[in-house]
């Protein structure tokens, strides 16, 4: 039986499933460390002596700060793993499986290459890149979209509203982690590879929002298009005002860029090498279970959405 060390095990991806109730399942040991401190990270590796590390910890910025720093939270891990590997601390083959932020992001591409350079005969590493995550435990994406109803933001479309996204249900990416770990423990064909894992269902971001709103019984009565460049300029000035007055940013350039960009990638490689096939789609059945799944799996989730929306 292999030992697996999951960093960020209490987080959104690390805990999925069983959901964000933060109870440690049987047969799982919970160790609390600050993974941004290299010394603590090394200690935990020595203590646990894992065969596989699944790195699912990441810095989650508030939506209003979606621009800028994203790399720093991850770099330490590579170094720690490398140093450990170099010192030959482990009798077992040391395997590393890394999960990082949003796909097609420049920071992440650079960072992915740092991690993957650490892939060698002793340490096999691969990187999984899910797109925007949602599912039980999501306290960012769907609540923020839902909050737009109360704030009266629903009718506004930034950009042409035609850019395709591919969101990822959180258990799908959890499945992908398991597949990747299994691969690195056996055939190791995934070593040094980067995989895009998503639901493989491209829809426009606008439609994802509309479906969520419709589920809560809201359909925007009219639509107003805002050109992307205009929104970007507004975001720029909002950012400046935020900087001057120290308030929370209502519209960041990062979110404008995200909302107007094409955000999907090919899932062929993950299918070919890992055998990854998303088990849960946006719509798995004729009914509309994606939100019901939230509500079914996590009864407090609905309340949390309502609280987030200030209703």
């Amino acid at each position: 039986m292999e030992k697996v060390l999951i960093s960020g095990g209490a987080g959104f991806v690390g805990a999925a499933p069983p959901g964000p109730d933060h109870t440690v399942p049987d047969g799982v040991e919970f160790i609390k460390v600050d993974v941004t401190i290299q010394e603590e990270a090394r200690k935990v590796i020595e203590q646990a002596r894992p065969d596989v590390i699944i790195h699912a910890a990441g810095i989650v910025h508030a939506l209003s700060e979606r621009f800028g720093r994203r790399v720093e939270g991850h770099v330490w891990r590579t170094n720690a793993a490398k140093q450990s590997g170099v010192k030959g601390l482990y009798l077992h083959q040391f395997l590393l499986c890394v999960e990082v932020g949003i796909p097609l992001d420049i920071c992440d591409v650079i960072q992915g290459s740092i991690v993957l350079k650490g892939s060698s005969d002793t340490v096999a590493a691969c990187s999984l890149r899910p797109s925007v995550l949602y599912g039980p435990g999501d306290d960012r994406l769907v609540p923020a979209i839902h909050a737009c109803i109360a704030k009266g933001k629903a009718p506004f479309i930034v950009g042409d509203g035609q850019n395709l996204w591919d969101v990822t249900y959180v258990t799908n990416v959890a499945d992908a982690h398991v597949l990747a770990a299994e691969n690195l423990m056996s055939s190791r064909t995934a070593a040094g590879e980067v995989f895009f894992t998503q639901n493989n269902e491209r829809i426009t971001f606008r439609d994802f929002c509309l479906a969520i709103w419709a589920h809560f019984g809201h359909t925007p009565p009219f639509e107003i298009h805002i050109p992307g460049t205009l929104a970007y300029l507004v975001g720029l000035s909002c950012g400046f005002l935020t900087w001057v007055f120290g308030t929370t940013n209502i519209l960041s350039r990062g979110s404008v860029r995200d909302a107007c960009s094409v955000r999907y990638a090919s899932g062929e490689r993950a299918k070919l090498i890992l055998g990854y096939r998303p088990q849960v789609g946006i719509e798995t059945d004729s009914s509309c279970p994606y939100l019901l799944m939230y509500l079914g799996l996590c009864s407090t989730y609905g309340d949390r959405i309502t609280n987030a929306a200030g209703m």
Partner: protein
Amino acid sequence: MRATEVLYYMLRPSQLRSIVQWKVWHNPVHERNVNNETETQKACFKFLDLTSRSFSAVIKELHPELLLPVCVFYLVLRGLDTIEDDTSIPLKTKEPMLREFKDYLEQDGWTFDGNRPEEKDRELLVQFHNVITEFKNMKPAYREIVKDITDKMGNGMADYCRKAEFEDASVKTIEEYDLYCYYVAGLVGEGLTRLFVEAEFGNPALLSRPRLHKSMGLFLQKTNIIRDVREDHDDDRHFWPKEIWSKYVTEFEDLFKPENRETALNCGSEMVLNALEHAEECLFYLAGLREQSVFNFCAIPQAMAIATLELCFRNPDMFDRNIKITKGEACQLMMESTQNLHVLCDTFRRYARRIHKKNTPKDPNFLKISIVCGKIEKFIDTIFPQQTAAQAKLKVQGEKSEAEKEKARQEAETRQDLYFMLALMGVIVLIVSIIMLTAAWLLGARFDLAFQELKSGNFRPPAKQIPGEL
């Protein structure tokens, strides 16, 4: 042309332009040579014109190698159809005729005059010997294909007629719906694909992926079934599968009641969704064709089909009357589908986006339609990527691609040219000023006095003194 049409095209000059462009500038890839044709060939083309409105034009522009085989293939199937459609022929005559129709193709001079007089294509069977003569002139390989498909389709039709006679022939499940469409249109797709591959105008891989040519037929047939729902209902024919419509209404005719309009639209959108699932495979198929006239022959109906689906999607008029794409749109589509796959893909993307735009979250199929539209776009992106891996890498590394470098260089050049022009103009202004000042000086202008006046703050010439005031 009616007054409303004139008004319509006045408001849409681009469509009018498309019509003019198509009528004036379209040149067929291959033109048939009427002078060299035999009597029987002429008769075949005459019947082609009589029996088909839409296919006749595209068939007649086909490569000479396939011109007659496809024409004969079409007429044979049309003949089969004429027997099946005729309700005046009793089953015990009809069934064996349908099953043996393939053998009639080998019998010289076989004709049939048992159709009721009002049957539209009766004359075709009365003079069917022309078709048989041409069938016998075809290459054996082509004959084999036509015969095989006739056999399959005849038997399929015979089974269907038996079922209609003894039990209920209405389409219940989606599977039955697909099967029905396969017999009516999918088989034609198979036959044509085999002809194309035999003539080496198509990639042989098209035959090893039967799903592709099946989709070509099903996409067209399903579109027709969706569009003609009202007309078919008035003739008491129903092709919409119960599995779909029963989710929305209890009786099929409820779809046409004005109070159920919203429900009917949702039902219609599920039908459109079902048809759209084939769009991707149709584009895949078209990528396997190697000859322009064959590409045109296949692409035109597909482009018309996706435009028709867009027209039917969430269109309440569909349940009231027969709707059609406008002539201008049709001409534009024909132009776009007679060029290459890239242009056709842009057309598909355009219509997928229009469908997507009409999609509403109130519809229970909202997300599925969104996904299927996304799938079409994604497929187009896969065959014609908007961004290559090399470009993406350069972008990540912050480097510019060759094209971008070239563009930057050209921009710099333009800027230099602009500065040069400005400098040149400045020099000219300077020279002209010097010449003028020199001329003024030579003519005795007192610049010293002018300077003095300026120094003392008099920027205007002194007011003229009026003599009377002195």
